[in-house]
């Protein structure tokens, strides 16, 4: 697939997601994950970080794309937006290792062909991050992620209203982002 076509497809999915289409959003994130993984692995190898650290970067990038999706202007190409966020997270990862801050990042179109399949477990895996969140947030994230429950089911299990689950979930994701940001990797 050429970058231009891929980009147009991602932009289409993101526009639908911004309009509230959850399945478009899921397929966007699922399509992007292997691409991001390819970029992260390739660049992490270059700057001396290992493969599990690359998976941390992938997860951080996904969280950042999610929390900052309102900074993308739907009239602009989505590729530069994704790449800039990815580059930023790679620079952070490198900075945490005390290396110089200049990361030469390969263009995404070179990387589209790279095999980014397989779901290697992140080294700084979120399970350990979860320990540092509150008990409620932890149960919530486990229920929604690993156990794959819906918001409604989770609300029933945890005896919370759906609204409260949504608010707590959003806070938990922001909490994860700041744990990542502050953790010395």
């Amino acid at each position, binding site marked *: 697939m050429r970058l231009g076509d891929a980009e147009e497809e991602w932009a289409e999915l993101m526009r639908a997601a*911004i309009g509230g289409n959850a399945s478009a959003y*899921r397929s966007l994130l699922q399509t992007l994950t292997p691409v991001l993984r390819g970029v992260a692995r390739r660049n992490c190898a270059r700057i001396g970080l290992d493969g599990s650290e690359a998976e941390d970067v992938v997860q951080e990038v996904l969280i950042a794309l999610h929390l*900052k999706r309102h900074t993308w202007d739907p009239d602009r190409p989505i590729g530069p937006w994704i790449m*800039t966020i990815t580059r930023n997270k790679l620079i952070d990862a490198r900075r945490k290792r005390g290396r110089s801050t200049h990361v030469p990042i390969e263009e995404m179109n070179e990387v589209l062909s790279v095999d980014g399949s397989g779901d290697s477990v992140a080294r700084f895996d979120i399970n350990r991050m979860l320990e540092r969140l509150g008990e409620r947030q932890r149960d919530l994230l486990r229920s929604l992620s690993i156990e794959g429950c819906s918001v409604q089911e989770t609300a029933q299990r945890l005896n919370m209203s759906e609204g409260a689950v949504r608010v707590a979930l*959003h806070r938990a994701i922001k909490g994860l982002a700041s744990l990542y940001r502050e953790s010395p990797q």
Partner: protein
Amino acid sequence: MKTDDLVNVLVADLPITTPRFSRTLTRALIFGALIAALVFVLGVHMRPDFAAAIETPRVWLKFAFGLSLLIASFKLTQRLASPGEPIGFWGMALLGAPLMLALGVAAEMWLTPESSWKMRLIGANARFCLLFIPMLATAPLACLLFALRQGAPTNPGLAGAVAGLLAGAVAATLYALHCPDDSPFFLATWYSSAIVIVSASGYGVGSRMLRW
């Protein structure tokens, strides 16, 4: 948690949305400028000879300087906090205000006798200028930095510094309604120093507060 599990979590969070960042920033600017205007009305007064002064080119320069800095730094702040958006024209546009000022200074040197320069430079109100511009800029700067937390600046310090220029431009434009010193020399020295102070505070706060 594996990456696929994380995707489940993010999809579940889709319904919680944030307004488009450019809108948030525009609102912050308007809100901050309104507070600054209120502070101005309550604490500083318009110059008594405003109606006559507004007809002189020296006073035009003051407003043209403030407003061009305001527009360019607003566009630039927005772009610096939106990943992947090119800076393009607006980086150059930021030079418009200092360029205008340089021309004004040159004209003033051409038109006025050297013996009057010192007086024009020192003016009547330098201390007030250095005090009031940062004071008037406080609310807009706070609003802008707060809004920038919703953005994603690649370089947090730089985004904070440009937001400081923007807040300083708002304050300088308001302060020009009061200030009786109209020489471009005064503008180049005191207004600029005051705006630099605001920009430096923006840098300091931004580099700490705007990481994401």
